[in-house]
């Protein structure tokens, strides 16, 4: 049995996507842990941005809110929401990490409602800054557990834009050019998107996962890359830093 859990695997995989010198807009939880881990390993110059105004803090611990004081602790600047989102709109921000109650084959996300919009079964928080980040940042990534209720054929509500209906539909809708979903990191696999159709495409299987498991836990038909690799497991050093420095209280990885 592996000496790490799937949350740890996802966080480590996500952190590896963030190259040194990149800029990333994050929320709390796993995305923040991934950014912190990247900063403490291979990407010391990673610029972390929080939508409420925190610019490139030296996070002393996991923030519990996107606007709490940790998000601007020893920061480059304690700014405002427009400092962050204007920078995203101007094209300064490479990545964002998002989540959602539902995701479809084009990487569109729903965090608004389960059931009918007018008379919902479950009303959810809505976009928050997710739609803004996903509209403006160059590459959107998602860290999420994978199952059929979450990976759906049709969203109950398209809160946050992915590739919309695929092909050129995202640009045609009017969103900034060359932006869009990039990687989906689940407990079972890592997916990208087909260059033409923009459909979700499995790139690598996490240790212990099989193609069948991945497809079975997905409500739509996945595409498969030519060479499906195995997601490299976390290194000992990554796990040590994640557990000792990033999330010592196991808020995220403990679950």
């Amino acid at each position, binding site marked *: 049995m592996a000496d790490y859990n799937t949350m740890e695997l996802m966080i480590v995989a996500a952190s590896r996507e963030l190259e040194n010198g990149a800029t990333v807009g994050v*929320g*709390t*939880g796993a995305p923040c842990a991934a950014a912190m881990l990247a900063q403490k390993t291979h990407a010391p110059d990673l610029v972390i941005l929080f*939508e*409420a*105004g*925190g610019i490139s803090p030296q996070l*002393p*611990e996991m923030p*519990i*809110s*996107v*606007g*709490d*004081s940790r*998000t*601007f*602790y020893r920061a480059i600047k*304690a*700014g*405002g*929401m*427009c400092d962050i*989102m204007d920078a995203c*709109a101007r094209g300064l921000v490479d990545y964002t990490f998002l989540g959602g109650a539902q995701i479809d084959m084009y990487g*569109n996300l729903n965090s*608004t409602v389960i059931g009918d*919009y*007018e*008379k*919902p*079964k*479950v*009303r*959810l*928080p*809505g*976009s*928050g*800054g*997710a*739609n*803004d980040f996903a*509209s*403006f940042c160059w590459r959107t990534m998602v860290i999420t557990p994978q199952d059929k209720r979450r990976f759906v054929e049709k*969203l109950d*509500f*398209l*809160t*946050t*834009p992915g590739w*919309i209906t695929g092909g050129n*539909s*995202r640009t045609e*809708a*009017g*969103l*900034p050019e060359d932006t869009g979903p990039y990687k989906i990191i689940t407990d079972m696999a890592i997916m990208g998107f087909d260059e033409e159709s923009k459909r979700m495409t499995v790139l690598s299987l996490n240790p212990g996962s099989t193609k069948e498991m991945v497809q079975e836990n997905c409500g739509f038909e996945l595409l498969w890359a030519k060479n499906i690799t195995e997601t490299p497991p976390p290194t000992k050093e990554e796990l040590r830093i994640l557990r000792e420095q990033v999330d010592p209280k196991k*808020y995220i990885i403990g679950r």
Partner: protein
Amino acid sequence: MDTKYDDCGVLDSGTGPVFMDPDPDKARLFFRNKSKKMSVKLTSMEEAVRANVHDGDYLVVGGFGSNRTPFHAVHEIVRQKRKHLKFAGHTSTHDMQVLAAGNTFDCIDIAYIIGLEARGLSKCSRKLFEENRVQFNEDTNYGLAMRFKAAAMGIPYIPTRNVMGTDTFRNGCGKIITCPFTGKKLVAKPAIYPDVSVLHVHEADKYGNARFRGISVSDIDVANCTKRLIITAERIIDHEEFRNNPDSTMIPYYLVDAVVSSPWGAYPGTMPYEYFSDEDHLGEWLSAEKDPETFRKFLDKNIYSCKNHFEYIEKNGGLEKMAHLHELEMLTYKEDSNG
């Protein structure tokens, strides 16, 4: 508010309601008649809310989530049983939870609602939607921020490049237009001139000049666009402090209608450099919501029976709690040695 000018290049329109008139000329008339005299505006929370928050008003609460959020004022609004408010669900978390508990609003611009970020979802807030008790318009955090900014600039809309292609657009009140310079599609978002807003700051003088520390979120734009503004402050300081350092002023007095001395006014949320959020109490609140009878008692204890914010804090740990939250905020708390 349903006027349409589809002959002027509108390609598509969202179906969400526009709660506030974006007409800058009507807002100008209001601002023209608002006094700019530097008069003493220091008053009690009771009076500030009574005089400035009216049934049916569009209300903005400052800060982000539960950070630098004027909970003292929010409790007073509930205590005074305001009804039929329109609420800006802009990065709202515990503030919406409290306002929902009091059934204070029935229209809402939605950017972020119901959730308390990582802490969970408010059952009581969810019910408003699941029981169809509110009218709502779908937006985003930046979208709402831009609507305040448009109003702050005295223009009826700002064009942005988000939300296109989504149901968030479809159920919002934006309109897709074409840029006359580049031919690109843009979403025009109508200005919001709120009736009343409440901002919590570190320091204010008796006239309303105010300054705060840490992130500003959208509070400066909110201060500029709102028709009436209540400033609640951790500390009231001498006017000379501003005169001697005009670089530090964030909100000039003439935007302000009432100033309230409100120490620990952001409790149970975080006040930067002062105190961290009371996670135990916020957790208690979330679980109290699960049972109606428990929640009724909980609200009685924490809001309705409290004569002021001090009493509320006393009931939840008083000075010792605040000293502890200060240590948490300043990262000086050691789990081994304290508590």
